[in-house]
């Protein structure tokens, strides 16, 4: 019996080959798209979940009350004191900081990111020890731990245990343990670990642990189960207030950032780098709204593919009435007929599932590389995922078989044999409901795609406020280089290959880490000029192509521009200042020219000394996006001084290939002890934004596929409606209706449903996109255009499909269509 059903199933699938293929492909592609997106979403939302007790792990943050900037770092020595003060609340504490150092193995020199950690770091973050013993590995200060990837990179093909390397030319370390690699869904990117106690030595900073206000470390706490992060943060602040107090305590707030928030927080300053320099993997933080919009598309795609499948099965069932009649005449019960239909659609759904898995197998790596996330299809087969999929598929099969089963199997055999039941299949209301739903989803998807596309175009094409083209970035990452800056500058600028050379503490694409709060003599206390601070050398704005909107750039031509370094011996200094447009607006100078000539000062006390820096605003510079285009540009002040962390060289057009070896040779000449660490600003910028752009192009592609699947279902429904009315069409023709009349009539009927679908889809999509756009500081104005376009596409589709079907139905000689009774 069952074998006969199966046999019949395959015969039917083959008989309606084209139809079955369309239907199976539609579901398979829909499933594949949803699976791929779900893989991505699952990967992103699983960040750091593998850490033991991850929901109790927090990272300490602090916030500056004056600037409102919040930092991923926390004060170096304080976390330990706080943890010791509340032993019942803190189960464990671990700290890390990353620092790029010069690493030698024998004569071979390379820059590597070294992570300074507490010895319990590996246990805290659930690393697996591959060889050696991680717990005791860092007990000796000259020991080091490597990940497998780092071991392979530094000591290829050898056993790294027992091997040594040297940092900065004079600190030797011996590898004593190897741990597994960072998971792709862990925010950790460290590969070479040494003991945190080595920091003061390597940074040559003996008072490192004594300065309560320095914040170079990331501090992670595992709290006891009975305390929340917020409660603990309040306690931590209480500790600071009681034990340190003063201006410091008044100016800060303390946060306990949940571990699982780290991957979704794009707003923190001093955030840990997301690039794993050993594996090359980048793990950019995502906006939650991006992830949810992706999840939403996955869900919609699944729904649309399912509906599509159901609609097609219903449409197809009208071709099966005679067969059902015969079977019933021969004694088939209603249950048996229903079973046949359910079996058929379940088999088709399963074929679609298998095909979708094949598609996913093929495309997952490609898709992953586009998104910058290592995705493999393996993840599908783990845990509940595959069972969920199979269950979904069965559900889809059963539901889509259910409707035909219910209606077709209930048809009286006498009627079925006579073919009198065509009009009776299912209620027309239900059918209309399905059409409306399918159209609504399609319209929603198309309009959302349109909005995303416009916004991404807008964001990616928005002027950055600086020109990254032809700029070489050279890190001045050691004292020798910093000392040689002026000499290198003078030599470089003489060359015709180079247009401009400058240096600074920070350049675009870097984190804006330092801040300053300015007051103004004789102004009300409301006056506010709280900025991020960048120390630049002469020529900074020219080199980076940042335009002045008022006044002039800082320059060594004006002796008063330079702000000397303050010190206990020299606590009062003064100099020129350039602020950006956002800063000028914040201070109330709506017209940038108003800012020129204004005198502001920053005053603070440190130790027992009161410091004061007087600044004369000489210029206002255009806003530039230092970080993500999504966030509003920060208020920034630029001072002329000596804090050259990075050199920027603007190369004259077309000379890049000659300029690079020239810059290298100059470096070699003046900084012989260190290899050059150089990049191109344009590439740094691109790696910053390209992923974001790609992620959304991908989104658009997927939404497009989903919309296409929706169209298949629309075609199926339109065919069904036209088929149902073959006879009516015949009669109308006999009575004198033209083919065009008939096409118009049928199209209008479907159009009514499309109008309703628009009314449902527009507000829903509008609300969703509004929400998503809110995540951008610069966003397009929501216009009706994408919605109109989506609506028009839906209309065209409705007309095209019905016309096509109605046309062929209407062209049949009425004698044949009438005989179908």
């Amino acid at each position, binding site marked *: 019996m069952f074998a006969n059903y199966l*046999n019949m199933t395959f*015969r039917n699938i083959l008989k309606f080959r084209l139809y079955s293929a369309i239907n199976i492909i539609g579901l398979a592609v829909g499933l594949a798209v949803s699976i791929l997106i779900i893989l991505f979403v699952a990967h992103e939302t699983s960040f750091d979940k593998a850490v033991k007790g991850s929901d109790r792990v927090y990272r300490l943050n602090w916030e500056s009350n004056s600037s409102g900037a919040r930092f991923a770092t926390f004060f170096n020595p304080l976390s330990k004191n706080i943890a010791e003060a509340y032993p019942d609340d803190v189960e464990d504490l671990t700290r890390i900081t990353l620092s790029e150092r010069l690493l030698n193995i024998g004569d071979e020199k390379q820059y590597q990111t070294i992570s300074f950690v507490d010895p319990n770091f590996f246990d805290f973050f659930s690393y697996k020890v591959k060889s050696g013993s991680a717990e005791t590995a860092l007990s000796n200060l000259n020991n080091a731990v490597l990940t497998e990837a780092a071991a392979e990179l530094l000591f290829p093909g050898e056993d790294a245990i027992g091997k040594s390397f040297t940092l900065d030319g004079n600190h030797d370390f011996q590898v004593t343990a190897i741990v597994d690699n960072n998971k792709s869904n862990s925010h950790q990117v460290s590969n070479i670990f040494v003991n945190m106690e080595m920091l003061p030595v390597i940074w040559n900073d003996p008072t490192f642990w004594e300065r309560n206000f320095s914040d170079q470390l990331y501090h992670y706490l595992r709290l006891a189960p009975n305390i929340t992060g917020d409660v603990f943060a309040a306690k931590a602040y209480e500790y600071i207030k009681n034990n340190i107090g003063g201006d410091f305590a008044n100016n800060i707030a303390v946060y306990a950032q949940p571990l699982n928030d780290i991957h979704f927080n794009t707003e923190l300053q001093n955030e840990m780098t997301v690039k794993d320099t050993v594996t090359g993997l980048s793990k950019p933080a995502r906006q939650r709204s991006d992830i949810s919009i992706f999840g939403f598309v996955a869900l919609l795609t699944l729904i649309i593919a399912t509906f599509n499948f159901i609609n097609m099965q219903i449409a197809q069932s009208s071709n099966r009435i005679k067969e059902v009649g*015969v079977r019933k*005449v021969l004694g088939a019960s209603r249950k048996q007929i229903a079973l046949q239909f359910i079996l058929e659609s379940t088999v088709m759904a399963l074929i679609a599932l298998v095909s979708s898995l094949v598609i996913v197998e093929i495309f997952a790596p490609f898709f992953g590389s586009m998104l910058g996330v290592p995705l493999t299809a393996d993840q599908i087969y783990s845990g509940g995922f595959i069972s969920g999929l199979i269950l979904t598929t069965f559900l889809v099969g059963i539901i889509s078989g259910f409707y035909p089963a219910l209606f077709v199997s209930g048809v009286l055999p006498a009627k079925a044999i006579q073919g009198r039941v065509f009009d009776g299949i299912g209620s027309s209301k239900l059918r209309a409901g399905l059409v409306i739903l399918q159209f609504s989803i399609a319209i929603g998807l198309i309009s959302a795609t349109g909005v995303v596309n416009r916004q991404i175009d807008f964001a990616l094409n928005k002027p950055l406020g600086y020109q990254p083209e032809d700029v070489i970035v050279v890190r001045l990452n050691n004292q020798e280089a910093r000392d040689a800056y002026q000499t290198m500058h003078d030599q470089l600028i003489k060359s015709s290959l180079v247009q401009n050379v400058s240096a600074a503490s920070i350049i675009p694409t870097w984190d804006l880490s330092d801040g300053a709060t300015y007051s103004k003599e004789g102004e009300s206390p409301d006056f506010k000029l709280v900025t991020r601070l960048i120390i630049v050398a002469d020529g900074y704005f020219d080199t980076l192509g940042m335009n002045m909107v008022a006044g002039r750039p800082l320059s060594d031509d004006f002796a008063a521009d330079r702000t000397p370094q303050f010190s206990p011996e020299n606590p009062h200094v003064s100099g020129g200042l350039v602020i950006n447009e956002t800063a000028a607006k914040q201070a109330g100078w709506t017209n940038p020219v108003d800012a020129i000539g204004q005198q502001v000062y920053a005053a603070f006390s440190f130790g027992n000394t009161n410091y004061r820096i007087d600044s004369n605003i000489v210029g206002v510079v255009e806003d530039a996006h230092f970080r993500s285009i999504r966030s509003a540009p920060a208020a920034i002040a630029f001072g002329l001084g000596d804090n050259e962390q990075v050199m920027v060289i603007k190369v004259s057009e077309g000379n890049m290939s000659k300029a690079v070896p020239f810059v290298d040779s100059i470096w070699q000449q003046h900084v012989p002890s260190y290899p050059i660490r150089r990049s191109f600003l344009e590439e740094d910028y691109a790696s910053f934004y390209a992923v974001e752009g790609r992620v959304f192009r991908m989104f658009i592609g997927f939404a497009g596929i989903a919309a296409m699947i929706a169209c298949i279902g629309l075609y199926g429904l339109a065919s069904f409606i036209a088929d149902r009315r073959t006879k009516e069409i015949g009669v109308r023709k006999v009575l004198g209706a033209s083919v065009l009349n008939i096409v118009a009539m049928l199209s209008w009927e479907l159009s009514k449903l499309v109008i309703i679908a628009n009314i449902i889809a527009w507000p829903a999509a509008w609300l969703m996109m509004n929400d998503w756009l809110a995540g951008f500081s610069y966003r397009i104005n929501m216009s009706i255009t994408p919605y109109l376009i989506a609506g028009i596409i839906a209309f065209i589709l409705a007309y095209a499909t019905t016309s096509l079907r109605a046309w062929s139905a209407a062209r049949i000689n009425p004698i044949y269509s009438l005989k179908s009774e």
Partner: protein
Amino acid sequence: MLKLQDLTKAYRTDEVETVALNNVNIEIETGEFVAIMGPSGCGKSTLLNIIGMLDTPSSGHYFFKDEDVAGYSESQLGVIRKQHIGFIFQSFNLIDELTVAENIELALLYHDIPAAERKERVAAVMDKVGIAHRAKHMPSQLSGGQQQRVAVARAVVGNQSMILADEPTGNLDTAHGQEVMEMLQKLNEEGTTIVMVTHSPSHADYARRTINLLDGHVVTESMRSKI
């Protein structure tokens, strides 16, 4: 075998009510061969469908083997139908996706008969109607006469005691029509009750009794004298 008492069938579509059968009284004995004749639209097919339990009467009684089935539900009717009644249609109504053998086997499928026995019985009946050499063919590859022979085989393979045939020769040429009639006659001689709707007087002559319908009424019943 069966008895219809004051049986009426009315179809209601939107506003109009069509009375297809009006107070019909008919009795058919086991082993009879009855022809039903009458002009188009007089209710012949309706009558046959009700006898065959494919449709239910609006009022009146239908005694099948002394059991009044008039008020039975579709599924109750289905159980009786599949045990006792076989059908032959003017338009054959074979399933296009199944082979000849599979089409015939279909009639056994809903009967809880083991596969081996099914195959045997299908083979036997195909021999009987002379279609064995076409077992693996699809219906579309057969002539009309051959298709109707498959339909006959399908109607009898379950050992049904009664065959209802609605214009079985309507789509066939004279020679093939003759063939089918002879087959029915042979079945009747073997004991199968046959009720057949036909427009052809010569085919009606195969029957022992002819019932003439007009506008849903039985007008005359004539017995063939020679037997």
